[in-house]
């Protein structure tokens, strides 16, 4: 009997645990459900249905929904369904939709080889003429348009964000241990050593997601060798066994051994925000992340911004390296909104995209910490301006490897970079495997 009571108590506790957990998921799932539901009820008679897929989270959902609502109010002939997709399974969803022939009218890509493949496949509508109307394309930052172009035509609108990766840090933690923003990697390592000796994890990292850790690899390689080693390797003229990549791998493993990353990083997932909790609470001091981080925080923990805790500095330079330390890792546009070639009303779909950047949306996006890739963009957020300065002074931008590379090689890159972090492969082994994947892709 006593045993049973214990069991019952245990299971009861488990139950309550479950209930709270379920409550959480339900809330998170409610948003898209509501917007889809609203779309359905509005579906009347001969309205033209348009579907839009995006992967924004938090308050940015509401901004997009508000833009769409304004669009529908002005163009009542459309019935728009907004679907909020999850970032990490987005590529799978897209590939399933392509197979099933149910590609939405408006969807996002991240550019790079994957987008070119879609274009070659005739899946994306050529919006060059629409973009050129009234000089609309000219209002965007040139690098953004360049990223949306392929073979001289424009295929997407760089709506979301100028996203370059840099190191975000918790100002309170830096102040507490009297630390300064480092400008070289040696200084960064000194900062990390101080933090470790005080029991603070230097970097918050959720690397079950893989692209998160891969950014360290990319930046270190870029600081060592500039843009060429990667460009050459990806074109088949160089190799991923180049010294730059060996340096990147070795440095990461050195940092792992010195406990520069938070505990359990290889098992944590970025979408569920496990590493960010450490960052917010001050148990981790820094986070190498794309500049969407500002708007992620705005949506998740506005208090953190209000308390002026967030600081930013570009990834530090490597002493003795000839590579230009102003080079940035990132993307101008981040999520590029495309019109599907199978859309029944591509022009309407294009105007729908434009509504995401109407005047009101621009104000709301700016308030949410976005760095809109428009030439007219300005912000009074200090961190945003620092990011913007970093971009403006950059001599070049390295597009994320995992978007630049073809999908199958990108997956190998993410996998081997996780192996490097997990110390389950030496940098040499990891780079050799990446190179062999690249070679076998090029030989096809």
């Amino acid at each position, binding site marked *: 009997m006593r045993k*049973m009571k214990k*069991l*019952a108590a245990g*299971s*009861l506790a*488990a*139950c309550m*645990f*479950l209930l709270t*957990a*379920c409550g959480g*998921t339900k809330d998170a799932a409610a948003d898209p459900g509501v917007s889809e539901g609203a779309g359905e009820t509005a579906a009347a008679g001969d309205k033209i249905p348009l579907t839009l897929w995006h992967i924004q989270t938090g308050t940015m959902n509401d901004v997009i929904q508000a833009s769409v609502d304004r669009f529908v109010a002005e163009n009542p002939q459309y019935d728009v369904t907004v679907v909020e997709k999850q970032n990490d399974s987005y*590529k*799978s969803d897209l*590939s*399933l939709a*392509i*197979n099933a022939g149910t590609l939405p009218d408006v969807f996002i890509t991240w550019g790079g080889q994957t987008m070119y*493949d*879609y274009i070659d*496949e005739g*899946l994306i509508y050529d919006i060059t003429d629409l973009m050129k109307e009234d000089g609309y394309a000219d209002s965007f930052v040139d690098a953004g348009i360049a990223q949306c172009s392929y073979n001289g035509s424009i295929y997407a609108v760089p709506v979301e964000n100028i996203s370059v990766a840099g190191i975000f840090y918790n100002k309170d933690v830096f102040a507490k241990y009297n630390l300064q923003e480092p400008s070289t990697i040696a200084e960064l390592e000194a900062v990390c050593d101080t933090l470790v000796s005080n029991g603070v994890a230097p970097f918050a990292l959720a*690397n*079950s997601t*893989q692209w998160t850790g891969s950014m360290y690899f990319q930046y270190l390689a870029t600081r060592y060798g500039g843009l060429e080693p990667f460009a050459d390797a990806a074109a088949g003229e160089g190799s991923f066994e180049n010294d730059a990549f060996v340096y990147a791998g070795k440095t990461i493993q050195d940092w792992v051994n010195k406990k520069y990353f*938070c*505990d*359990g*990083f*290889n*098992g*944590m*997932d970025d979408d*569920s925000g*496990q590493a960010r*909790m*450490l960052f917010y609470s001050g*148990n981790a001091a820094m986070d190498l992340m794309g500049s969407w981080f500002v708007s992620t925080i705005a949506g998740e923990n506005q208090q953190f911004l209000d308390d002026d805790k967030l600081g930013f500095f570009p990834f530090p330079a490597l002493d003795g390296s000839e590579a230009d330390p102003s080079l940035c890792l990132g993307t101008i546009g981040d999520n590029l909104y495309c019109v599907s070639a199978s859309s029944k009303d591509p022009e309407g779909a294009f105007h729908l995209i434009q509504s995401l950047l109407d005047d009101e949306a621009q104000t709301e996006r700016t308030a949410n910490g976005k760095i809109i890739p428009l030439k007219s963009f300005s912000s009074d957020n200090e961190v945003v301006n620092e990011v913007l300065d970093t971009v403006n002074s950059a001599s070049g931008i390295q597009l994320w490897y995992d978007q630049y590379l*073809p*999908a*199958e090689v*990108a*997956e*190998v890159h993410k*996998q081997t970079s*996780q*192996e490097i*972090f*997990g110390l*389950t*492969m030496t940098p040499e082994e990891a780079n050799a495997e990446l190179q062999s994947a690249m070679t076998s892709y090029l030989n*096809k």
Partner: protein
Amino acid sequence: MKKESSMSLRRRKETAVAAAVFLVPALLVIAVFVIYPILQSFITSGYEWNGYSSNKSFIGLANWAELLKDKVFWNAFKNNLLVMVLSIVIQMPIGLALATFLDKVGRKGNVCKVIWFIPMLMSSVAIGYLFRYALDANTGFVTAISKFFGGGTVDLLGNTGTVLITCIFIIAWQFIPFYMVYYLAGYSGLPSDVHEAAMVDGATESQYFWQISLPLLKPTIKSAVVLSIVGSLKYFDLVYVLTNGGPSHASELMATYMYSNAFSSYRMGYASAIASGMFLLISVIAIVTMRVLNGKED
């Protein structure tokens, strides 16, 4: 005499027609949703194809040759085998014990029955997220317990050495209720007079369990074992949500590896080869198991 035989002939004919009429719809459904996809996977496995492109190039058995040499795949297969063996070893006895307990206490155990069944009612995705947070290396409950006793953080999901065994325990947590209910159904099929007769003959409860009810439950246990084997070998959802096969393929299962090839690497041809390979491996193991289990009976 003659008339009668023609009657029975006609009757047999009619039965055959009726059988065909009743079977055709099911056959059609199976043909469209089971047989065709399996054949299609085998066919696709002969192509180099990214999953959406209009040009598929036929490369013969190259995908299969790669599969045979693919260390990650065979490691995933080994992981599947471990999941299979440990699922049987952990889930079957505990499920049986819970069912036996519930069968003994009868109605009084209804509260336990309901509570114990709850994990089965949750979707695997919810369970995955639940345990991702619950086992978080910094804020999870295992770390909290360890810290309470003066230990450090415990990283179960990010560690290549512990991630698979952790997944196996979570899978057990999820599926023990299923086998509990399964065995409970088995118990309810046992005639009650056998129990009475055994008691009248002076058997103890433990004698009754080992000598009488366990042998009578044998058919139920056998089918549970086969279900568990097939389920473990094609297991996917919880591991996909929890770890996505990582870190460093340490919790990779054949199905998660197939998925990432098909939908992340865009290698549909190779993924089809993995799927077909899985089909062959699982079929062989299931057939051998059934042979072995049924052979013992004779």
